[in-house]
C-alpha cells in the first residue's frame, strides 16, 4: 500500500505534505496540456514573426528555430520583426512610399476607450450592485433580470436607434459616445458580478460600523469596498477582455479618429486589394494581445481569489 502511494509522489503528482498540493510531475502534465491548448495562439504569434512569403508555405512552418536539429528544416522559418513595423508604417498604395497606417492612433483609442469604459462601468455598476444588494427594491430580481436582458439581444438590433441618437446629441465619432455605450454594455455583467460579491459579505460588520457611528457612505467605502477588491479586479479583467475585442459598435459608432484596433484590424483581412495579409494580421493581433495579457497576468491572483461567490440568486 505504501509503495503504491509513493509512486504518485515520486512522479510528483501528489504531495504527502498536504492535501491540495502537487509537485513537478503535475507541472509537467499541466504544461503539456496547456501548451497544446495554447498552440493556436502560439501559431499566430509565430506567424507575426514570419517573412510574408512563409505565411502560407506548405508544409506549414512551425518554429523560428530548429532546436538544435530537433525540428526538420522544412518546418523552420527565419524570424523577422518587419511585420511589426508594417503595422504602423507601410505602403498603402501600389509601390508607394511607406506611410503611417494610423495604428498608433488605433492602439491609443483602444486603450483609452476600453480602460475608461470598463472603469466607469465598474464605478457605476459597483454602486448599483451595492444598492441592489443592500437596499433591495420591491421586485429587485425583476430589475436585475431586465438588466441582464440588455446583454441578450444581438447588437445589430439596437444599433440603428443608437446611431441616430448619437447623431442627434452630437456624440457620433466621439470618445464620449463610444465610452458611454461600452459602459452600458459592461454594466449588466458588472452589476451581476459585483452584487454576488456584496451578497456574500457578512452584514454584521457593516451593522457594527453603523452602530459605531459610520455614515452609509463610510460603510460603503471603508467597510464593504475593501472586502471586494478581488471581485473588482475580476470584474475589471472580464470586462476588459469583452470590451477590448468588441467590434460592431466600434465599427458603426467610431469615426476615423476614434476607431479602435478590432475595426482597423480588418485592414489586414482584406489588405491592399487582396485577401488576408496573414503576417500583418498576426502582428496586429500579437501587439493587441499584449496589454490585455499583461493586465490579466498581474490581476491573476485576484481573479482566482476574486470570482468566488455562492449561488445564482434570483
Amino acid at each position, binding site marked *: *500500500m*505504501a509503495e503504491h*502511494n*509513493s509512486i504518485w509522489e515520486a512522479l510528483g503528482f501528489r*504531495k*504527502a*505534505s*498536504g*492535501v491540495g498540493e502537487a509537485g513537478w510531475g503535475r507541472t509537467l502534465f499541466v504544461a503539456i496540456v496547456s501548451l497544446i491548448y495554447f498552440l493556436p495562439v502560439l501559431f499566430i504569434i509565430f506567424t507575426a514573426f514570419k517573412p510574408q512569403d512563409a505565411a502560407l508555405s506548405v508544409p506549414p512552418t512551425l518554429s523560428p528555430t530548429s532546436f538544435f536539429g530537433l525540428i526538420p528544416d522544412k518546418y523552420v522559418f527565419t524570424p523577422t520583426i518587419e511585420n511589426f513595423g508594417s503595422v504602423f508604417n507601410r505602403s498603402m498604395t501600389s509601390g508607394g512610399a511607406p506611410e503611417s497606417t494610423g495604428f498608433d492612433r488605433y492602439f491609443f483609442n483602444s486603450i483609452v476607450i476600453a480602460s475608461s469604459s470598463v472603469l466607469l462601468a465598474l464605478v457605476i455598476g459597483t454602486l448599483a450592485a451595492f444598492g441592489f444588494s443592500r437596499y433591495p427594491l420591491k421586485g429587485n430580481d425583476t430589475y436585475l433580470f431586465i438588466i441582464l436582458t440588455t446583454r441578450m439581444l444581438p447588437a445589430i438590433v439596437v444599433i440603428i436607434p443608437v446611431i441616430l441618437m448619437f447623431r442627434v446629441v452630437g456624440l457620433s465619432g466621439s470618445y464620449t459616445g463610444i465610452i458611454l455605450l461600452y459602459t452600458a454594455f459592461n454594466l449588466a455583467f458588472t452589476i451581476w458580478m459585483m452584487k454576488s460579491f456584496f451578497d456574500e459579505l457578512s452584514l454584521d460588520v457593516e451593522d457594527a460600523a453603523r452602530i459605531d457611528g459610520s455614515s452609509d457612505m463610510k460603510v460603503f467605502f471603508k467597510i464593504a469596498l475593501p472586502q471586494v477588491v478581488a471581485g473588482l479586479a475580476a470584474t475589471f479583467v472580464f470586462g476588459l477582455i469583452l470590451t477590448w475585442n468588441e467590434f460592431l459598435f466600434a465599427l458603426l459608432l467610431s469615426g476615423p479618429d476614434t476607431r479602435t484596433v478590432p475595426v482597423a484590424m480588418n485592414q489586414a483581412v482584406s489588405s491592399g486589394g487582396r485577401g488576408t495579409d496573414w503576417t500583418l494580421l498576426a502582428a496586429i493581433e500579437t501587439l493587441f494581445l499584449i496589454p490585455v495579457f499583461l493586465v490579466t497576468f498581474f490581476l491573476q491572483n485576484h481573479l482566482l481569489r476574486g470570482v468566488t461567490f455562492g449561488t445564482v440568486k434570483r
Partner: protein
Amino acid sequence: MSTIEIRKVTKQFGSFTAVKDADLKVEAGEVVCLLGPSGCGKTTTLRMIAGLERATSGDVIIAGQRMNELSPQKRDIAMVFQFYALYPALTVGQNISMPLHSEGLSKADSDARVMKVAQIMHLTEVLDRMPNQISEGEKQRLAVARAIVRDPNCFLFDEPLSRLDVELRHSMRGQIKEVLTGLSKATVIVTHDQLEALTMASRIAIMKDGVIEQVGTPHEVFAKPVNVFVASFIGTPQMNLVEADLQSFGDGKASVILAGQSLSIAADPAVSRLKPSKVTVGIRPRAFSTVQDKGGDTIAAQAELIEPMGAETLIHARTSSGGDIRVVVPRDKRVKVGEALHLKPDPRQTHFFGEDGKAVRA
C-alpha cells in the same frame, strides 16, 4: 491494539522547524493532551499523526505499524477539526454516515450506527437539518459524532472546544471524556487551554517551540514541572518565579537571598549539587502562608492590587526589591491595599530551577 507512537519526529517547513525530535507514546484507552501556546507545533504534530502532513524525519507508528508514508485514508483514524469541517452540502445525518461509506455497511447497519451515535451525542432531533441550521454546540457534537461513528485506530481532536462558550465548553468536556472512556482508544487532543487538558487528559504533553518539554499526568506536570516554562505554563494564577542567590545548602535547607532578604527554605537534596549561584525559585501563589511577625524565613512585601476571586483572593504584592509576587489567600483573610505582608513559602511546594531553567530534583 489502538496505540499511537511517534519517535523522534521532526517537521520542517523550509528552514523553519515546526516540530523537533518529538517522542510520544499513547496507549489504548489513554487520552493525551498536547498543550502549549499557539505556534508551539502541537497542531502540526497532530496533523502528522493524521497524515495530513508528512514528517520530515522520525517515525509515526499507529497500532504498531509505521505509517509515515500512508495517506490519511489508509491510517484508519478519526479526527475532529477545530472548525468542525462539516460537509456543508450534507444533512447532519449524512455527515455522520460519511465515514461509514468506506466500510461497506448495509444501509440498515449504517442507519443503526448513525442513530446510536446520534443518541449518544444528542443529535437525534436535528438529523435532517443542514449544518448551517444547527447551533454551535450541536455542530461540535456533530463533529464528534462523525468521529466516533466508526471504530478507528485512534482519535485525534484539534482544539475541539475552542469555538464554544464557557458553559458549553464545560459540559462538552464532560461528555467527550465520558464517550472516550467508553471507547478505550488511543486519543490525542490538541488544546491551548490547560483547564481542558488537566480535566480531560490521562497525560499531558507540554510543547514549546516545537519541542515536547514534559509528558506526565496532570498531577505530575502540576506538582513536578521539569522546567521554568512548564512551571509557569501550568497552574492559575501563574507560579511565582523569583530570581535568587543560592548561598549554601545544609541540613536539608537551602539558604538563599531572595528579594533582598535572606531565607532558609527546605529543599530537595538535589539542590545541594548546585554551586552557590543564581537560581530561580518557584512558589505557587497558594503556597504562601501570611504570618504576623516579621520573623525569619519570610518575604516582606506590600499589597498593591487586590483581586477577589470568589472563594479566594488574589493579591499582587511588591517586595522591597521591587519584584512582583502573587499570593492567593482565603476569602476571609482581609487584606487592604498598602498593607505590609510577611509571606512564608510552603517548603514542600517550593521548586528550585537551575541557571539552565531545569528543575533541580532528586
